[in-house]
């Protein structure tokens, strides 16, 4: 393991144990004062199709991993069929401690719980495709996320006619 990777892993563990570190980091970030879009929900949950989006670095083992060598992160996304067995998914993300999430992927990618909601009649349907991103996007990649990645995911969800989206961070 390279020294940089080891440093990231130790930092990730420290952030997990001491939330105040993350809070301090958050206070230092630049604020986005742009207008926040808004659309009113119109359907009861039991009739709605929901799409799941995670920023926990989840992807299929057969897909290229997120690029961990770029200190500004990887602004690309992966399409994740929701019926993928958990054993075929992997987390590539060195900026948080994902040992627990590997044990129970629902912590950052709650497809099993959402499927339970569908079976119980609480949710109409789960969109067959979920979307995986990594958090920790910085520098020039923020522009890529804003102008390319996020709108591309939004278009795909609009084309799929989903009613709502749930976004889960890591």
């Amino acid at each position: 393991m390279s020294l940089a990777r080891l440093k990231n892993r130790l930092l990730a563990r420290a952030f997990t144990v001491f939330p105040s570190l993350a809070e301090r980091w958050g206070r230092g970030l630049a604020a986005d004062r742009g207008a926040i879009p808004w659309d009113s929900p119109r359907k009861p949950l039991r009739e709605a199709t929901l799409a799941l989006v995670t920023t926990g670095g989840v992807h299929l083992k057969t897909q290229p991993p997120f690029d961990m060598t770029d200190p500004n992160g990887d602004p690309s996304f992966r399409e994740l069929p929701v019926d993928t067995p958990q054993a075929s998914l992997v987390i590539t993300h060195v900026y948080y401690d994902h040992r627990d999430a590997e044990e129970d992927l629902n912590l950052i990618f709650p497809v099993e719980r959402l499927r339970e909601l569908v079976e119980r009649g609480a949710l109409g349907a789960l969109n067959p495709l979920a979307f995986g991103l990594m958090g920790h996007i910085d520098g020039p990649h923020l522009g890529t996320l804003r102008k390319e990645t996020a709108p591309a995911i939004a278009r795909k969800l609009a084309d799929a006619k989903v009613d709502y989206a749930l976004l889960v961070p890591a």
Partner: protein
Amino acid sequence: MGLAARAVEAVGIPTISLSIVREITEKIPPPRALYLRFPFGHALGEPGNRDQQLTVLYLAFRLLFEADRPGTIRNAGLRWRRETYLPPDWEAFRRLGPGAHGAQ
């Protein structure tokens, strides 16, 4: 996260986001965020705690229907550990929807 939620909302799909660091969420607020003071990598709680995970989802969907202004950040008020989580109330889940009587 905030940027992704905003892009999805902008095409007419209402979004609900989970947040684990309020200070970060406040910098780029998504349309609606449920704040949980949980550690990184644990947005839905502890591994294997199904009741906790379903409680988080219930509170998130309630907020989807109850929030009335963009940038709402609601504190879920849940503790990470030492909290008693009841089994899911499926009837309450099935009542979730728009309007004053949707969520209780």
